[in-house]
């Protein structure tokens, strides 16, 4: 089967000299959950943001859902085609504060997929029920807790029926007691066979749900292992050091 994401020798630098991505090659198969870990500034966000065209890259090849993306910058249409099939969830939720929860979720189905409002709202309510927050449908984002907002953000991403979901530290901005409600929702998605790339430092989630762990440092892939190997017997000194650090916290 064709991989959902295939990156080959991706390289990108923001300022001259510092490489945010340094010769990165990985692939994500359908139904797979790839967990991306690494210290702050190692290029995790930059990497997953290239997958839906939020970041460009300087050289290498990238193929998302069979659509090849080059390092040139004029591919708006291709990128929008990819974005309609790839959902993304941000650290800071990024809900639209002026729209109700229901409107947040139905916006893209109505405006991008040209669905009828009734149909879009019905589907949105189903998603909200899955996320356990259907009672908040008519509220506004500022009335919800962080954990609830993040679940709305997941529902919003799911509304376009994506084939791949990208998560950039989805629980880092949450109160500790709110983390699990979001991780549980993600766990259920993984069980349903959703392909996901998740940047996270939640070790338990990575162990239970992850199929592969990608460890990055300074824009480079240090190692790609199964969670069993990575968390018990990491191949690289740097991975072990990093794991010790997050265990201490």
């Amino acid at each position, binding site marked *: 089967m064709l991989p959902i994401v295939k990156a080959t020798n991706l390289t990108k630098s923001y300022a001259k000299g510092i490489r945010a991505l340094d010769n990165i090659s990985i692939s994500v198969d359908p139904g797979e959950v790839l967990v991306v870990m690494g210290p702050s500034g190692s290029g995790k966000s930059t990497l997953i943001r290239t997958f839906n065209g939020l970041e460009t890259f300087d050289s290498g090849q990238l193929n998302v859902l069979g659509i090849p993306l080059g390092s040139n910058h004029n591919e708006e249409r291709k990128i929008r085609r990819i974005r309609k099939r790839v959902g993304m969830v941000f650290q800071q939720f990024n809900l*639209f504060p*002026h729209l109700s929860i229901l409107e947040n979720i139905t916006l893209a189905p109505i*405006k991008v997929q040209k669905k009828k409002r009734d149909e879009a709202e019905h589907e949105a309510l189903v998603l909200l029920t899955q996320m356990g927050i259907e009672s908040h449908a008519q509220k506004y984002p500022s009335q919800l807790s962080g954990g609830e907002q993040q679940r709305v953000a997941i529902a919003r991403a799911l509304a376009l029926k994506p084939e791949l979901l990208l998560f950039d530290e989805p629980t880092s901005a949450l109160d500790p007691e709110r983390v699990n409600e979001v991780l549980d929702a993600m766990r259920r998605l993984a069980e349903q066979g959703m392909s996901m790339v998740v940047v996270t430092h939640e070790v338990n989630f990575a162990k239970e749900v992850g199929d592969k762990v990608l460890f990055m440092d300074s824009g480079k892939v240090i190692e790609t292992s199964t969670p069993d190997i990575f968390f018990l017997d990491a191949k690289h000194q740097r991975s072990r050091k990093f794991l010790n650090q997050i265990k201490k916290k």
Partner: protein
Amino acid sequence: MILKKIKQRAFSNILDSITTLIIISFIIISLTTILKWIFFSANWSVVKINLPLFFFGSFPKDQLWRPGLWMSLIAILSFATLLAPRWKWVPKFLPILWISFAPLGIFLLGGGLGLSPVESRNWGGLTLTILLTSFSAILSLPLGIVLALGRQSELPVIRKASSLYIDTMRSVPLIAVLFFGQLLIPLFLPIGLEINRVYRAIIAFTLFVSAYLAEDIRGGLQSVPKTQREAGEVLGLHPLQITCLIILPQALRVALPSLTNQAVGLLQNTSLMAILGLVELLGIGRSILANPEFIGRYIEVYVWLAALYWVVCTLMALIARHLEKQMALEKRG
């Protein structure tokens, strides 16, 4: 209970007591003077006799129902807006009604489509003031939005042109723009096509006010975090959809208080047209005072004008504050 509070707040020590007494006696003295003047000294006949002039200018007598109808509709619309939250079905129609009432005014005043035409020099009074204000406001809002977006454009040509326009307009006094509007706009038009002074004034006001609106809206745009655009992009929305559906609604909410200020300022500035020969509210006052019959009655006329301006401006401010509250409610619930 109340007495105790008053005592605590206003008479807690000797200095406070003296200040309070002085202020109270000052208020009483000025109030009695003013009321005495209003009810005994002032001669309001100049206002009573000219009431139709103040409201409608020298509009033909048999057609007075047209400006009358228009003004009543505005009054109804204003109160409907203020009461809207109690009547759930109203809010849906309000924006459309508000946008259409300025063109409706032009139609009712100017005539056409079965109404007999009335020349613009017969438009006047409060009706003309509100027509100038509402039409200029409704035209300058979209222009201001375009300019504000232009100033943030990625295309240098558009960005520079918008900045140049905004900065130029903001460094010229309004009266100069109005003068040029009256004198120059006819020169730019092809011979034979003539637009009346009211339209020229509306164009000049629009060109001027939109530059200020653009700056207020730009402030609003800057208050919307970049991540909002990203969140829209990720959903596959078109850049134009993101601007219209996500960025602008939030920016306009933030800018609303300053936009209201501009609207109230605009209403007051329409009185400058009195100098340029339009008989809007201030102009009609001046022309009434020029009538030998009413000579010397200028205090009555100006007090009356001030009261009218005050009522209209207060109504505008009330509606604006009401909208702000509604939006804050929407956000918090």
